[in-house]
């Protein structure tokens, strides 16, 4: 979607120009730096992102610049023409234009053109063209006349077509327009007569071109307010003959019909053009972006202080005069597609290329771009990113956001944050996010009433945070017993210390059911195996097998007998969850987080006995759920795995065994666990036996194959 961003003025002081506006804006050899020539005596070099001039040069009093200064991309020098015939060439170090290289030419110059990749060209008012080198070798050489008398060059452009330079210029004679196309690889000059489609004679106000596969598309903005397109063949069939070209209407009434001075047109990309002018006769002048494919207005920006009818477009910036200031409006058009809108990116992978894993380079800390990428693609992305970094304006959005955090209201911060997150991610995105969180937490500490819950949730969901980036976040959430943020943090942050995990566990176990009822908790980890409404009694389970091992068989001690006496109760206990689903979801987040046993154990000892029993009961319930199916997994998205469950059971028992043993209500639980472990051990030992026998068999087989030093075998080649 095409978008015009907030513009900014380039010159703090108004240009010393009249109503005509500047003579020209041209690119220099460095990105982001532009040469602005005013219609008087001055050339100024601006750095656009800094919005400041880097250098300024003036010709002597009495002289006047007649042609905008350009940069010679091959040498880095600047070229300007004053008094129609005097050529000046200088570079950044020169101060006085009077003292720099000077060449007086024999004919009047219309424009100097310079683009990347070829030498600058000088277009004379009579239509002749010379390369700069050739001209400087002999400045006084005779310049021929190409166009007829009274024919005046109106507009000109120089560009590359398939690496060959092509110059196009439009002349006017008595209301008729002619296009000349000069190709330098073949030195052919083709002349075309432009046939205007409409009856009444219109003055064409502005031109712009773009290069296609076979045609140069010349767009013109006519004084009737319409945009016309003319296709000029790149490879004309009969180059010598004067050919006629018909214009076709592309857009109707983009500017008001009454001829105004200030109307200009610039092609932005394949489908978009920018038009400068007043849309209605009475209205203020506007900069508007039109989509030519769908003939729709994409965006527009009012310029209340008037403009001069000049528009330049370089890189991603539109330059125009606004009032008395040269204004830059960045233009951006992101490619949109249906797939993109639906969140699915196209993955086109060539069969020949191979996915190579991304390797962490120790020498260049290049952000945390993990995941596998096509190697070639990643290189390209890297390059693009470099360019982005260099183009980035000096005041990044993040510092603005940080400033906002310090003073603005919670609502406003939220809006700003959403804006910030919507922009493109820079390589240091994660550190910026970390800074933002720390900024928010800092304010939380200073103002107890300030708690930007939604902002924090948004930030955690960016997936780039880690505990070490924002150490205070979970402390604050614990303080406020904000279980939702805690759950999110446990799910998203990779490096939570065990003490904090344990503190979360305590909060989750101790928090009241009524408070939980109101909390907005992600339930996806429990939704599939727990009814939200607990009716307590689920269908009774018949004898279930633990890993295929029937506990009935093993004759346990008297306690087991006791258990058997109340089969109904056992079944109840095994199938109904001892917790509310919300609490279970929170505990699942704990189960799924990373930890190291040695650091977790001391903290687990602090959990009150009642709570640890409750947690054990829940874990046991999960285990039973697991063993219900063959794959030993829990249903649902992101459920805890069997290993995680078992590890936590062991950890809890290790930490609290002496306490749990003393609690009467835990007795039954412990007994069932004991029985379960016993059955596991016997299964494992059986499996071990089988494994060893298999390995022996394999070894025997291998020996038979490999120990033979010589054999004759039959091999069939297909």
């Amino acid at each position, binding site marked *: 979607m095409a978008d015009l961003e907030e513009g900014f003025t380039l010159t703090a002081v108004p240009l010393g120009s009249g109503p005509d506006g500047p003579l020209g804006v041209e690119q220099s050899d460095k990105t982001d730096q532009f040469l602005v020539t005013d219609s008087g005596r001055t050339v100024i070099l601006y750095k656009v992102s800094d919005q400041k001039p880097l250098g300024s040069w003036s010709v002597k009093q009495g002289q006047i610049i007649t042609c905008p200064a350009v940069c010679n991309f091959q040498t880095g020098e600047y070229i300007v023409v004053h008094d129609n015939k005097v050529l000046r060439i200088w570079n950044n170090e020169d101060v006085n234009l009077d003292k720099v290289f000077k060449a007086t030419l024999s004919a009047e110059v219309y424009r100097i053109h310079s683009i990347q990749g070829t030498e600058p060209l000088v277009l004379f008012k009579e239509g002749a063209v010379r390369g700069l080198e050739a001209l400087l070798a002999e400045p006084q050489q005779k310049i021929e006349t190409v166009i007829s008398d009274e024919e005046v060059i109106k507009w000109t452009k120089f560009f590359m077509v398939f690496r060959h330079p092509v110059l196009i210029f439009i002349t006017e004679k008595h209301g008729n327009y002619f296009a000349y196309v000069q190709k330098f690889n073949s030195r052919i000059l083709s002349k075309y007569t432009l046939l205007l489609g409409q009856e009444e004679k219109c003055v064409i106000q502005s031109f712009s071109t773009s290069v296609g596969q076979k045609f140069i598309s010349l767009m013109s903005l006519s004084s009737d307010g319409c945009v016309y397109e003319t296709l000029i063949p790149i490879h004309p069939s009969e180059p010598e003959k004067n050919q006629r070209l018909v214009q076709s209407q592309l857009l109707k009434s983009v500017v008001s019909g009454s001829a105004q001075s200030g109307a200009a047109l610039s092609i932005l990309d394949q489908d978009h053009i920018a038009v400068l002018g007043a849309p209605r006769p009475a209205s203020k002048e506007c900069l508007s972006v039109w989509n030519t494919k769908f003939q729709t207005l994409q965006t527009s920006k009012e310029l209340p202080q008037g403009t001069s009818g000049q528009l330049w477009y370089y890189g991603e910036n539109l330059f125009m005069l606004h009032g008395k200031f040269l204004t830059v409006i960045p233009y951006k058009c992101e490619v949109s597609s249906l797939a993109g809108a639906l969140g699915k990116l196209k993955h086109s992978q060539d069969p020949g290329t191979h996915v190579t894993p991304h390797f962490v380079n120790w020498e260049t800390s290049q952000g945390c771009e993990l995941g596998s990428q096509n*190697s070639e693609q990643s290189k390209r992305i890297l390059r693009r990113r470099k360019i982005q970094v260099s183009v980035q304006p000096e005041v990044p959005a993040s510092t603005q956001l940080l400033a906002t955090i310090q003073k603005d209201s919670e609502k406003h911060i939220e809006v700003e944050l959403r804006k910030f997150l919507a922009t493109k991610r820079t390589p240091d995105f994660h550190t910026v996010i970390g800074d933002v969180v720390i900024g928010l937490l800092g304010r939380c500490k200073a103002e107890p009433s300030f708690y930007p819950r939604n902002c924090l949730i948004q930030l955690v969901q960016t997936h780039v945070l880690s505990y070490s980036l924002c150490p205070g976040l979970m402390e604050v959430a614990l303080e406020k017993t904000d279980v939702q943020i805690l759950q999110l943090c446990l799910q998203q942050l990779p490096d939570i210390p065990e003490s904090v995990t344990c503190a979360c566990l305590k909060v989750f176990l101790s928090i009241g059911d009524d408070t939980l009822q109101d909390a907005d908790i992600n339930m996806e980890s429990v939704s599939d195996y727990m009814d939200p409404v607990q009716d307590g009694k689920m269908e009774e389970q018949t004898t279930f097998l633990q890993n295929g091992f029937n506990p009935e068989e093993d004759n346990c001690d008297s306690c087991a007998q006791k258990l058997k006496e109340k089969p109904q109760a056992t079944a109840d206990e095994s199938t109904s969850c001892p917790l509310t689903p919300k609490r279970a979801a929170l505990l699942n987040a704990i189960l799924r987080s990373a930890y190291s046993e040695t650091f977790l154990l001391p903290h687990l000892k602090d959990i009150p006995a009642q709570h640890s029993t409750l947690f054990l009961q829940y874990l046991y319930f999960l285990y039973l759920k697991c063993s219900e199916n063959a794959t030993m997994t829990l249903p649902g998205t992101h459920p805890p795995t069997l290993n995680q469950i078992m590890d936590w059971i062991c950890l809890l028992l290790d930490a609290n065994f002496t306490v749990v043993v003393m609690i009467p209500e835990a007795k039954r639980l412990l007994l069932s666990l004991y029985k379960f472990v016993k059955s596991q051990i016997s299964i494992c030992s059986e499996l071990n036996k089988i494994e060893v026998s298999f390995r022996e068999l394999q070894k025997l087989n291998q020996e038979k194959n*490999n120990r033979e030093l*010589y054999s*004759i*075998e*039959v*091999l*069939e*080649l*297909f």
Partner: protein
Amino acid sequence: MGEFNVHRVRFFNYVPSGIRCVAYNNQSNRLAVSRTDGTVEIYNLSANYFQEKFFPGHESRATEALCWAKGQRLFSAGLNGEIIEYDLQALTIKYAVDAFGGPIWSMATSPNGSQLLVGCEDGSVKLFQITPDKIQFERNFDRQKSRILSLSWHPAGTHVAAGSIDYISVFDSKSGSAIGKMLVDRQYMGVSKRKCIIWGVAFLSDGTVISVDSAGKVQIWDSATGTLVKNHLVSNADVQSIAVSAQEDSFVVGTAEGTVFHFQLVSVTSSSSEKQWVRTKPFQHHTHDVRAVAHSPTALISGGTDTHLVIRPLMEKVEVKNYDAALRKITFPHRRLVSCAKKKQLLLFQFAHHLELWRLGSTVATGKNGDTLPLSKNADHLLHLKTKGPENIICSCISPCGGWIACSTASRFFLYRLNYEHDNISLQRVSKMPVFLRSALQILFSEDSTKLFVASNQGSLRVFRLLEGGFTHLHSFQPQSGTVQSMCLLAVSPDGNWLAASGTSAGVHVYSVKQLKLHCTVPAYNFPVTALAIAPNTNNLVIAHSDQQVFEYSIPDKQYTEWSRTVQKQGFHHLWLQRDTPITHISFHPKRPMHILLHDTYMFCLIDKSLPLPNDKTLLYNPLPPTNESDVIRRRTAHAFKISKKYKPLLFVDLLDEKTLVAVERPLDDIIAQLPPPIKKKKFGT
């Protein structure tokens, strides 16, 4: 394609010797490797890691140090106290100079490549000037009290660090005086060891000296103040080698436990400019001592007692997926050690100091694919032929009739006549060797065993006629004037009319044996030739190059054949080009002229030129097609490359007759079993 009876031979008891030194040359991108038996091999890293040259070993010449000097000159020094320069063109030893300091333990060329420094047993450090054709002793540095085990020049050439026992000395290279001494802690995990041997030192341009020692430490010193800056304990055993990258931003050390550690100069924090050496990556590609390491711009190279040369690319330096991005483990030489007398079913195995002759067994049974047939007669070990003298055998060959065996060392050429009477063999050495026939780089018999072709140093090719009990010199093809290019590979046409020879870098020359003159030269190709053969009847020369390209060149027409052009036009299958061992032998089906047999270490391939070539979409390594599929499908999926990976690692494959193949395998386990036991490491649960 048909069924073959495959003689699967595993009794070639070949054990490569351990790697002692590696030296990397950045300019030519070549790697010199010396082994414990004194062999020196040159690998061309640009040509798909092909071992393009080798110098045979010598029992008394244990190399301890190897280095390159200016102008691609290669020097080695060893425990016999001699410094040796190698002639890389003629593949001989240019000269040996005694340093008169007892056994030499270390050697280093100055950064400009014009001076050579050796560290000797008696504690002396001797400076030699490298002159265009020799080296000349210049000066002794201050004598140290014990042997000098490692040396390193400051990149500016002003100072030298020398590792000895228990301390490191710093010398001024101009005056030769010792200006600093850094004592190394003998303590090892709190226990005082007897001695601490400095196995390696590296001098960096900022004055830092890195040392590795027998106590398992990697230490970083400031040579100006003589203070220890940082100590990394990396191993419980010795750290034996160190190599620094040219940019001095990373280095690599090798330990006796077989681990290679990569150290990198990393910023302390992402923003600060302060940098620190950090141990970043451990690699365990070796089972035994890593005696030598090298650091190329894109890879870590290591070698040791377990005989593998391992090239581990640094993935962050590699941009495109190509040969350089894959881990390489080079175990076997890229030349043929086995020759075969097809008619008599004899195999001749070449070892460092002896030859073994075996006769293959036989069977009367038949079977289907995958069967192992019962043997009616087992393989016989016929002969064990030991050469006299300390020199290693360079090459050997048995004649196709089995009646002749020839082999050569660096200074002697041996030719034997074999007579078979039932089960008895008599061996008779042919005496009266001509004086000019002293050593050979490659030996070949003609198909009818009447001619002997010998490629000698200095590029000459000699032709001999073999008679009962003797031989006469027929002709000698001299190299073109001005070139001293040793011929390493020979091939003769079955009709005996053509002889093809290829050198280390120049193209392949084809000589007419009848007219005794050069017939033509195959257009030069960028990559070295790894194998050559001339097809029967058609006299097409098949050439395999180290970049896995195979060409077929018609000798009578003096141009590439139509098939070769088609292959080049279509290109080889990408999996074919990604193989990492060179083709070392090519032979032909005796009855079917369209079939070419070639093999590398991990597969052998029968190319049927009449079938369509595989493109990148087809399966190159055809598994067995399901038998229930119709003939049509089978024919449609069939392509020219019939590949079998059943036998590996392969040292030799040949067609004995149209239905019989012989494949000589050398399982890695058998090699490991013959190596000394590695340092025992405690493994969890054992």
